């Protein structure tokens, strides 16, 4: 057996001789890289949130002169929000939130920070590649931000960028340079994520500490592992799609242009021959698995947090793992549920519908297992736990609304209405973001050696929980009322008139929701400096990262960690304490140390 894979595990450097730049900017340390992802995600959350508030303001008071805001709009628009500006707002809102907040946070920040610590490795398998994967985000950041200032503005064809609207420069003012930059920016994000995922998979397979068998891995690690596989398989397809659209826009290829081209005013595109629907297939082949990329890591982390604060073993460890595998596997064959009304062969629709409905099954298993964990628990209501419980309850709402749309005939009516927007935000904002908040509150002490303020944290949680529901729940109602999405001005329509009041209500709540996030930021930065010092294991949790100092030094562990049991031994009857860490050598609840080969 070759020994080459153990030598760099042990590469144990001292941790002081690196200069500031090497240590914090071009760092190869997985923890610093994770924190870099965390900070850039936070900045982009505010950008994405600000764009969302722009969306909300236009929807509540379409074409009104709004104090302050109106002054920003040029005279040529009559000091009102132009509809093409509106399309840009929601397109970039979604792009920023998905590709620059949720995915970098979940896989970039927490994937990086947690994987080596939780499996007992000193670092990732390829620290340099890891650094590169963060620095590949920078071209994406810069291009994305630059795209707001080009002629015609940033991309405005939705985050889905369907051709021909997106692929023909003349189809919309922002389908020119803005769209080109959008495509380029996402290419960089994709390459960054691919590097990350190769690194994560290798690390998890090859760098686990002694005794860390697969079924002793915390669910966070399992989730990151499955997510990385999803990314490795799905992202190349998105890359192809992005490149093909870029070629269509720049060198006149015709992949997405139908035979005969298309006229726009007096201008006619070149000859075609391609198929607009092809983009949708490629895009959703990536983007449906991507929605699970955006939820699985959160599910994993929430499972760990819930078990910790229930002081009780996670209910059904193996089913939890299998259901994640099931979600990921099924996730590859359901992409067509975004295309039921697209003109795709309806017989395919039936197949995709069956697969989609079946994906509720592993999700059900997960939900019931979380509930099972809380049953008979001794729940400690920390801020992290509250956010994690909010994740569970909100994911149920978001998931159940998915069932309506999965039913093909019902989707005929619901497709592209606000019912979908409600679904999106329940699964993405109210699940993924709550999961991320939980994770930040939970691992903040490990990251920075200080605890976040619980008082501010709870205020932040209550207000977010209330306002988020006020903002997004009524979207179900206006969706049932038939309110189409991506409308700059719904007031033109008679059947939407009764719903306009709800639009105003949601906007007010959205603004309050946005303001609430400032509390989080205050808490985050104040705690960085003045937070209470945290010891190694402030939550009395079981997994390996809590055996390292807070924050862990370069190289993570002082001694080689050894794992004796699974990560969820809380409240063991033969043990005095109500927790029993994986690294605790006492014989209680100890399996024989398992060796891989």
């Amino acid at each position, binding site marked *: 057996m070759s*020994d080459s894979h*153990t030598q760099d595990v042990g590469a144990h450097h001292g941790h002081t001789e690196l200069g500031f730049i090497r240590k914090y900017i071009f760092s190869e340390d997985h923890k610093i890289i994770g924190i870099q992802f965390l900070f850039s995600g936070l900045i982009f959350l505010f950008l994405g949130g600000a764009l969302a508030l722009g969306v909300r303001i236009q929807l509540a008071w379409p074409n009104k002169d709004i104090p302050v805001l109106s002054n920003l709009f040029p005279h040529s628009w009559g000091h009102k929000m132009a509809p093409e500006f509106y399309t840009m707002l929601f397109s970039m809102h979604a792009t920023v939130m998905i590709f620059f907040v949720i995915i970098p946070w979940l896989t970039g920040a927490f994937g990086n920070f947690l994987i080596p610590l939780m499996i007992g490795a000193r670092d990732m398998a390829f620290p340099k590649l890891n650094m590169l994967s963060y620095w590949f985000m920078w071209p994406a950041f810069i291009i994305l931000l630059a795209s707001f200032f080009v002629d015609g503005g940033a991309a405005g064809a939705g985050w889905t960028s369907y051709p021909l609207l997106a692929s023909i420069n003349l189809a919309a003012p922002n389908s020119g340079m803005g769209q080109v930059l959008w495509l380029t920016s996402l290419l960089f994000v994709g390459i960054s994520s691919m590097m990350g995922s190769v690194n994560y998979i*290798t690390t998890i397979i090859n760098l686990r500490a002694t005794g860390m068998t697969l079924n002793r891995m915390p669910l966070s690690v399992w989730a990151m592992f499955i997510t990385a596989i999803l990314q490795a398989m799905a992202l190349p397809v998105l890359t192809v799609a992005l490149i093909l659209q870029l070629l269509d826009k720049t060198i*006149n*290829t015709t992949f997405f242009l139908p035979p005969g081209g298309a006229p726009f005013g007096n201008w006619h595109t070149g*000859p075609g021959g*391609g198929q607009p629907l092809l983009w949708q297939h*490629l895009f959703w082949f990536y983007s449906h698995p991507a929605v699970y990329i955006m939820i699985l890591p959160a599910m994993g982390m929430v499972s760990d947090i819930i078990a910790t604060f229930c002081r009780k073993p996670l209910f059904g460890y193996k089913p939890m793992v299998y259901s994640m595998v099931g979600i990921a596997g099924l996730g590859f064959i359901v992409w067509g549920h975004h295309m039921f009304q697209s003109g795709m062969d309806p017989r395919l629709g039936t197949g995709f519908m069956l697969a989609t409905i079946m994906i509720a099954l592993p999700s059900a298993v997960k939900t019931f297992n979380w509930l099972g964990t809380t049953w008979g628990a001794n729940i400690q209501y920390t801020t992290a736990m509250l956010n994690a419980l909010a994740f569970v309850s909100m994911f149920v709402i978001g998931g159940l609304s998915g069932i309506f749309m999965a039913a093909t005939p019902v989707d005929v009516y619901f497709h592209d209405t606000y019912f979908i927007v409600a679904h999106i935000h329940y699964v993405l904002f109210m699940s993924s973001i709550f999961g991320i908040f939980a994770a930040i509150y939970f691992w903040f002490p490990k990251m920075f050696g200080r605890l976040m303020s619980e008082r501010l944290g709870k205020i932040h949680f209550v207000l977010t929980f209330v306002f988020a529901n006020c903002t997004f729940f009524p979207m179900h109602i206006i969706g049932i009322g038939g309110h189409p999405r991506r409308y700059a001005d719904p007031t033109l329509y008679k059947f939407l008139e009764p719903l306009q009041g709800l639009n105003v209500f949601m906007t007010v709540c959205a603004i309050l929701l946005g303001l609430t996030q400032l509390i989080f930021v205050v808490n985050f930065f104040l705690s960085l400096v003045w937070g209470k010092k945290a010891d190694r294991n402030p939550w009395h949790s079981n997994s390996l990262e809590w055996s390292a100092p807070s924050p862990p030094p370069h190289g993570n562990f002082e001694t080689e960690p050894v794992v004796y049991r699974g990560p969820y031994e809380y409240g063991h009857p033969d043990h005095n304490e109500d927790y029993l860490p994986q690294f605790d050598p006492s014989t209680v609840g100890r399996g024989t140390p398992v060796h891989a080969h």
Partner: protein
Amino acid sequence: MTQAHHDETQPSMGLPLPHGKLAMWLFLVTEIMFFTALIGVYLLLRNGTPSLRVTKPDGTMEVIAKWPTPHEVHLIEAIGAGNTFVLICSSLTVVLAHYWLSKGDAKKATRFIGITLALGLLFLVVKAYEYNSKWQHQILPGRIGESLPGMPPERERQYHGVAELYTANVRTDLDEIIKEKPAGVSADTLALCEKLRKDMDASTVERMVKKDGQDVKSSTYQRPLSPPEVGKRVNEILEEAEKKGEHLHLAPTIPYGNMWASCYFAMTGFHALHVFGGLVVFAIFLIKGLVGKLGRQDEGAIELIGLYWHFVDIVWIFLFPLLYLV
């Protein structure tokens, strides 16, 4: 199964694979997905384009539009096959390089790396030659006329805008040819071009007709050629020129030609980029070998680049029949 030189309590939990090899396999998984998507796009588009048939007056059916054959788009199978052979050979030589390196013979290894590099370069040169001929014949995305006489009317209506664009292209190209009289183009061909250029404009033709036994001038209006007619004439001129071995800078009419060109350039282009990437690595190791720095420590790296190179080879083995033969 712990090793003696390891601390007894630290068995590895991982697979018996070095990180690098595992990561290379994972990287290849992403690459497989990448090319699967590209090839999938090609197959879908190709099978999704219907053959167009028209019924001739005598009742027989004629296929007027189908996916272009290699001949129509000036692909020469022999060249492609040769290139395939070149790549397969290079796959072999990279294995040999690895073999000799593992035997400790850095010199032989260097030689085989050099041969691999040379073969890869040869592949790219041949590819460049093929691209150039496409360029010469204007078989480029967005340049090719697609409507042909005989298309059903609704089809022609659909293509109207495109056809106008095409005729505009042809007009500028013809103007250029007529003005510059490029070398290697015979007078005959030039004359054909001039005639076509004239027929493309509406004109009044004056003729002498006999009226009451006397010659009188009479003018008739001659309508401009319709786009499909232009396309047909262009193809005829090109065929003539081809026979004489002349290169005319004139876009032909090929049904589905633009789609074909898009696929061809995207697929072979990305493959060529991958070849190029491999060559850069081979060049680095060649230099290392030439300055005598190549040794056993590089064995792993050579094995990995070999894996990559086999993959690039396999992709071509899929591309070649799909583009040149089927």
